[in-house]
Every structure is written in C-alpha cells, then in structure tokens.
C-alpha cells in the first residue's frame, strides 16, 4: 500500500450523475506519483486513442484535480488541475496553493476526476462520506469573493445539520470558477482562496464547459500514513527550519519585484512586451507594503515560507479591494504590461481579475494585446465601445468584464491571445500575429528572454511542453526534470522547494512514500516519461489546431525584436541559440530532430502504445 496517499480517487460522470471511488496500480503511482504526472497518464489511457478529436470544451474532455503523496505532508499544500487544454490542445499540470488539497486528503481522497457535463450548474462536495453533486444555480454568475462567502456558510450549515453534536465544523476548502470560467473564456483560471489560481492551461474554461462551478472538500480524518514516520518527523522540522530562515523572501515575497525585474534584468512585460525595461521607481515594493499590505506573512496549509501578503485598499476609488500582494506576475501583467505603474491601480486590476476568475497572467496578456492593437489603430473605439489607453485602469477593468461575459469584442478576445489574433487578422485584413505573445497558445509568463539576464532564455518557452508557462521552463532536457515536473507531480509548492537542499526534499519523498524516489530517476526516467507524453499530446493536438514541429517550437515574433530601451537596449533572443539549444534539448530527451519521440525512447520509457501515433508523425 503506497504511503502518503489517502488511498482512492473520486470519479464523477456529470452527464450520467454517476459517482465512484477508483484506485490505481502501485506501479502507476510509483512512475507518475500524482498531480501533473498522474494526470498525463490518466489522460493518455482514457483519451489517447481519440486525442485529436477531443474538444477541450466538450463533454468528452476530463477535468482532473489531483494531489500527490507529498501534498499537505511536505510544506506548501497545492492542488494540480489538468485535462486537455483549450489553449494548447496538450496538457498542463496547473497548480494552486489551497487548503482544498489538504481537506481532500483528510476526506480520504487523493483527487477528483470529472467527466461529462452536468445539465445545470452544479458543485461537487467531498466529505468523509464520499462525493456528491449539488445544485449551484444560486452560485452561477457570482464573483470569487461571493462564491467563497456563500459556500462557506452553506456547506458548514449542511455539515452541521448532518452531524450536529460534534462541535463547530471548520470551513471547507474549495476550488471554483468565476464568470470567466463559466463563459468558457479559453484561458480562464481555476480559482481558490480569492487570489490563488491554477492559471496556466485554461482549466477554468474546462470546468465551465461542464457546468461545474466548484469542488468543495471537508474531511475530518488523519492525513495519510507515511512510510517512515520518525524520519518524516525529523525531516519535516528540518525543511521548516530552512523555510523559516529565508528572511528576505519571507519579507518581500515576489511582491517587491515589480520594479526590479524591469530595472535590473529588463525582462518585464511593458505594454504588451513592446519594452521590457522601465524606470518607474514608484512601482517599488514599499509603495505596496506601506499603504496596502495588511498581513505581511500570509501562507497556506503547512507553509512557513509565507511569501504571500494580504492587500486591501481602504479608501478612495478602489476602496474595498482585497487580494494578495499582488505577486510579481500580477504586478507585471495587471500592471506594467497594461502601462499601469500605480500600486493602487495594480491592486485594483488584480482584484477584478481574481474575482472574475481570469488567469492573472493569461487574461491580461490578451488585454495587453488588445491595447496594442488599439494603440496601432487596428482596433478602434468603435470595436471596443470605449478607448483603451495604456495606464487607464478603469478601461482595463471594463475590458476584463467584457471578456469574462463574452460581450462585444470580448467574445473574440475570450478565445485567448493566439486564437483572437487569428480572428482579428481575418476580420481586419491585417496580420496581427506579430503582436501575439504566446507559445503554443499559452500566453507567456512575465519573464522575457531578450535580455538574457533573467532565468528565461532562448528555449525556455520555445521547447517547453507547457508553452509559455514560466513555472516549468525548458532548460536542457535533463536538469529541470527533477524540479517543476517533480513538484507538480508530488504536488508541493515550488517556494517550499527551491531553497531546501535537494537531497533533503528527495529523502522526504522517500520517507513519505517508501518509493525509491531520487533526483536521478526523475531526471532520467520519471521526468522524461511525463514530458514525452505531454509532447505527444501537443503534436497530436486538435480539434482546431495541431502545432507544427520546429515552426511552433519557437518564440513569438516579439521576442526577436531588439529591446528598444534600457541597459540591454538592442539585445534580442538569438535565433541561432534557439535552433542549437532546441536540437540538443530534443536529442537529450530522445526525440528526433523534429521533436517527435523516437521509437527506442518510447520503449525505454515503457510508452510503447504511443508508437503507432508517433510513427504517423515521423513521416
């Protein structure tokens, strides 16, 4: 019996309203662990045969919310959402920090797997008694804050009714969608705890396409048994010791970076990436901290890194806004990328985005794209219904709502930057693809490659099986396979992982599961197995598009324009570097010169059933 696992997964068919408990072979769990890895395996087994035909927004797609064996036991509990991505037609292991992950395991479940489509808005409730489908008609259309408030009350009241004498019921954990997900905005996020999001991949839209408003969990059991309890006790203390010692990061989180990433590394998106450097010193950390941060060490289940900060605007135009920090990504995307350099305006856009259930990165990427088209006179006031000037927070708020509700031009922009660009090009008779900043449909995180001074370079996104996902970039096809691919599958937080000696993390993993988990095996076997499957999904694609090897394994046109300003002015991504590093990357993973997994690689990784499909692609 593998340890660290609660021991079963909940499978719900929303079309047939069938609910059952399922399990997986120990060998599968050992190879894929959970989260991203296990989701990839399940998706291949169930949808692999017809992958190209599966409509990500149709009833045949699956929505998975999985934990891993280390979740809630190792610091930094997270949930990993997956399914066929409406953006890339591949898969992403999209994670979010949330008590939901711990509650799910305490209720006795390692994950929830949803198929089909409900015929009216529903939410799923998971308790020690099992899973059930409940009406969400009263929740459909509600913003994030209201959804939490209503479900907290409703579920605790219901559980109190069912078991009245045991004392107070604590609030459940939950993941939910906002209006953006409900209306199938292609890059909508799965939200949790007002400001946390499983943002990459568009899985909010997948939930919306199933009429699934939320999944709520409340359990009262122990967290799962571990393989070596005494060892885990010691390692747990040791890991926490490392996290608590990270004074700098604890104090600042990533919410001090809104100025420095632009100023120091020239890799911050400014006005749809037209520049990557700015000198707006007022956008520095203290401008947020002094006026807006109300809780300076804020975290989630079993996390002592506490990099989050709770922000609130108490006066003025945006009075009442509540969000986190914002973290660097949203400082950039809900700020500098929209030409916004005022802390209050930035917090406001972040709050609007969170409440609507947009992804804080992907949503504003599309908004920035629209604003550049407005700047260039390609989209007009007539198209939008209003002026969309850089820095105008009220205008961007309007646009965020338009997109979330798919009204007017919002209906086109709701398709995500890539598909919107295709539609607008046709509509206007102008090629606007040069202004679309995405890789394989997934909008790029707020770290550019042109200055080469940040951690993102030539192939970070171009060769990444998760496209523009900055949390899991391609490095050399080897060293990175024991970082994000591992943490997304063990399902733990990267910020409880990076500054902990790797040996300690992997000892912890072994002590919890009893599996022979090592960095080496993840670099050489487990990791490559997962990304090879993900690569296959990308190449199979469909139904609307399948990516062209090499051509689409590339950066967007904008990333080849020389930087127009700052200390790295004139620099740009090197096409030669991309070409060369991409070749090495493919080679290292055992893929051919077009990045199609080779036969011998599939054999080595035990993925022989991929061979017929890959053989077709090699022609």
């Amino acid at each position, binding site marked *: 019996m593998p340890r660290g696992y609660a021991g079963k997964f909940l499978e719900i068919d929303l079309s047939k309203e069938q609910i059952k408990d399922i399990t997986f072979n120990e060998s599968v769990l050992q190879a894929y662990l959970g989260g991203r890895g296990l989701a990839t395996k399940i998706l291949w087994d169930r949808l692999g045969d017809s992958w190209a035909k599966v409509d990500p927004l149709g009833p045949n797609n699956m929505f998975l919310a999985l934990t891993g064996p280390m979740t*809630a*036991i190792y610091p930094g509990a997270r949930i990993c959402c997956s399914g066929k991505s409406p953006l890339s037609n591949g898969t992403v292991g999209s994670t979010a920090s949330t*008590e939901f992950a*711990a509650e799910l395991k*305490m209720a006795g479940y390692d994950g929830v797997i949803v198929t089909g489509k409900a015929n009216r808005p529903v939410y799923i409730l998971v308790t020690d008694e099992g899973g059930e489908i409940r009406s969400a008609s009263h929740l459909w259309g509600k913003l994030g*804050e209201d959804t*939490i*408030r209503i479900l*907290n009350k409703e579920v605790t009241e219901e559980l109190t009714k069912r078991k009245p*004498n*045991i*004392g*107070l019921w*604590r*609030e459940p954990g939950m993941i939910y969608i906002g209006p953006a997900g409900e209306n199938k905005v292609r890059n909508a996020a799965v939200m949790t*705890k*007002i*400001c946390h999001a499983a943002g990459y991949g568009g899985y909010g839209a997948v939930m919306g396409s199933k009429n699934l408003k939320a999944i709520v969990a409340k*359990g*009262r*059991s*122990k*967290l799962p048994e571990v393989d070596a309890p005494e060892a885990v006790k010691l390692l747990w203390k040791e890991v*926490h010791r490392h996290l*608590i010692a990270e004074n700098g990061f*604890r104090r600042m989180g990533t919410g001090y970076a809104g100025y420095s990433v632009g100023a120091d590394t020239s890799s911050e998106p400014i006005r749809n990436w037209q520049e990557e450097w700015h000198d707006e010193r007022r956008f520095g950390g203290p401008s947020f901290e002094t006026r807006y941060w*109300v*809780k300076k*060490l*804020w975290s989630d289940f079993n996390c*002592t890194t*506490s990099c989050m900060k*709770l922000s*609130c605007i*108490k*006066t003025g135009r945006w*009075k*009442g*806004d*509540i969000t986190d920090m914002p973290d660097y990504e949203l400082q950039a995307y809900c700020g500098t990328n929209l030409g916004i350099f005022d802390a209050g305006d930035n917090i406001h856009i972040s709050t609007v985005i969170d409440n609507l259930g947009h992804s804080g990165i992907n949503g504003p990427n599309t908004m920035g794209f629209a604003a550049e088209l407005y700047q260039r006179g390609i989209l007009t006031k007539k198209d939008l219904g209003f002026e969309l000037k850089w820095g105008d927070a009220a205008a961007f708020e309007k646009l965020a709502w338009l997109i979330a509700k798919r009204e007017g031009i919002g209906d086109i922009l709701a398709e995500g930057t890539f598909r919107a660009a295709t539609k607008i090009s046709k509509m206007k008779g102008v090629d606007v693809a040069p202004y679309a900043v995405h890789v394989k449909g997934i909008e790029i995180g707020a770290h550019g490659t042109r200055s080469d001074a940040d951690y993102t370079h030539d192939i970070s996104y171009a060769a990444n099986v998760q496209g523009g996902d900055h949390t899991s970039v391609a490095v050399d096809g080897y060293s990175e396979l024991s970082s994000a691919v591992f943490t997304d599958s063990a399902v733990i937080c990267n910020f409880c992982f990076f500054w902990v000696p790797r040996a300690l993390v992997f000892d912890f993993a072994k002590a919890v599961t009893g599996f022979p988990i090592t960095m080496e095996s993840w670099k050489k076997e487990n990791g490559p197995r997962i990304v090879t499957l993900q690569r296959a999904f990308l190449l199979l694609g469909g139904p609307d598009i399948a990516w062209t090897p090499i051509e689409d394994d590339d950066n967007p046109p904008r990333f080849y324009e020389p930087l127009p300003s700052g200390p790295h002015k004139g620099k740009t991504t090197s096409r030669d570097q991309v070409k060369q590093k991409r070749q090495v990357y493919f080679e290292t993973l055992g893929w051919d010169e077009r990045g199609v997994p080779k036969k011998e690689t599939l054999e080595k990784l035990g993925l022989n059933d991929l061979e017929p499909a890959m053989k077709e692609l090699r022609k």
Partner: protein
Amino acid sequence: MWPEASRIRIFMPFPGLEVPHLCAQCDDYPCIKSCPVEALSKDQATSAVLVNREKCISCGKCVTACPGQIPFLHPKDNKATICDLCGGDPECVKVCTEASYNALALVQEKPTVDRKLFAKPPIEVAKDLAVNLFGEKGEKVI
C-alpha cells in the same frame, strides 16, 4: 498529522481571517459545570480544563455550555477534546514563535480580564478582524 484532532483549530471564515480557536480557561468553567458525568476538571497547576476520556459519554453538553463552542468531539472516538495547555508548555506556541509569526503566546491574565472575551465563536472574532484588516469592506465579507 491530524489537524481535525488538534486541540487548537484554525478557522478561516474568509481568506485572510484566520482565527485560532482554543480554550481560554474561563474563570467560572461553564463546561466543567455542564458535564453530567464529571468527566471534566480543572488542572490546579495550569488552570487548564482536563478531560477524562474514559468517563466522557460524548453528549456534547460542554460544547453548548462553552461561550465560544470551543470543545469538539474527537473525529475518531467522539470524546470531548479541549486544550490542556500541554501541561504548561504549549507546543503550538513554540512552533508559532519559531516561525516568527508570534500569533500565540502563553499568558497569565489578571483576574479583571474577562476570559470570555477570548472564548468567542470564530465568526464573531472574524467579524472584528475583518474590519481591522479591511475597513468598511470587512462588514461585507462574512
């Protein structure tokens, strides 16, 4: 690791409003008075409430007697569960201090401080906290 069996439980009626919920050792010990089988008693050394698990009949009267509904029935055997101050050196305070949150402290309040101010249902505490953290907006989030 069993959060639901812990004698200190953290409620979160709204994100950001974390409320540690645990016994405040009321001066008049309404819980002890309410127990029909005298399973509850006062620890003379620490003033904490002690539960005799063998005697407890899981009736739940101590829960309703408590102004904050702080006791709860253990998820496994339904026995009343109340903070016993770990005999005088609470574990929760140690780790909270170690992690520099300093949200918990072992204190000896004067007799004039009403312990019942610390024994409130989490929602009541959260309503105050909400206004503290969020201003006017705080009145709308719960």
